[in-house]
């Protein structure tokens, strides 16, 4: 089956899958998609692979990590933090 032969419903489901997986669709639309999926193995298969893609992104850990922060860089940040605190009237600077 080529793209132009694909059913309209499959295409509609295809375009809404992310919102469906994100639970961002109204209940009636979810129900419609579930009804379609129940009777359309190719769409289930595709939805499953997209769900796994999202899971993979969510468990993604960086392959590249920054170098440990240098003493000077840390001091610069701490200084900015202290200044921010001392500019406030309600809390006296500490640390």
């Amino acid at each position, binding site marked *: *089956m*080529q*793209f132009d032969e*694909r059913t309209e419903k499959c*295409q509609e489901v*295809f*375009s809404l*899958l*992310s*919102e469906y997986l*994100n639970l*961002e669709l109204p209940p009636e639309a979810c129900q419609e998609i579930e009804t379609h999926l129940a009777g359309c*193995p*190719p769409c289930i*298969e*595709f939805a*499953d*692979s*997209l769900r*796994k*893609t*999202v*899971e*993979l*992104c*969510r*468990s*993604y*850990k*960086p*392959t*590249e*990590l*920054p*170098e440990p*922060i240098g003493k000077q*860089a*840390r001091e*610069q*940040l*701490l200084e*900015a*933090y202290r*200044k*921010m*605190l001392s*500019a*406030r009237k309600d*809390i*006296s*600077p*500490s*640390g």
Partner: protein
Amino acid sequence: MERETEIELARQLIAGEPEAFDRFVEHFRAKIFQYSWLMCGHREDAEEVAQETLFNVFQNFDRLREPEHIRPWVFRIAKNACLMKRRKSVFAPPQELSLEDFLPAMDHHGGHPKLQIADWSHLPDHQLLQSEMKQVLDRAIGELPEHYRSVILLRDVEELSTLETGQVLDLTADVVKTRLHRARLGVRQKLDEYLRADSRLPSSHA
């Protein structure tokens, strides 16, 4: 680190308790580095963006009214710091992705349409986390055009909400949703190509 822990650290820092400082720095430094490294592809730039972002964060911490918003707030500052670098991404040039680009081909088997995709259903979850797979994911995300990449990084990797992602990137919720879907489809397609090419899985139409 869970989002609740981040919020707690932000609360402590706002309250003037510096004990949270190092944990906060270590945690967000790695996050900002990852985001900007994947956005611009330059290690040096990513390190600088992380430092500049954290500097801005500490300088303006008292402007964060609600600690619950710490993650999107930090990422908004990081996004701006990334833009200031003005260096072009080493990755994909800007372009639009259309849904049609990602429609998998189908054929007929015994009267039933079959998708020409790898059979993901038999892929155990632990296999998804293997380092080789991670590199494929790195590439798949890196090769997305920039405005799709930023959305998938914030929405799926950093797990910001649609609204928060829109606030970070100055986009409406509808645009975030559209770009996220296309970005996911792009990443899915790359992973699928990898799985099929390496015959790690039998193609479901074979």
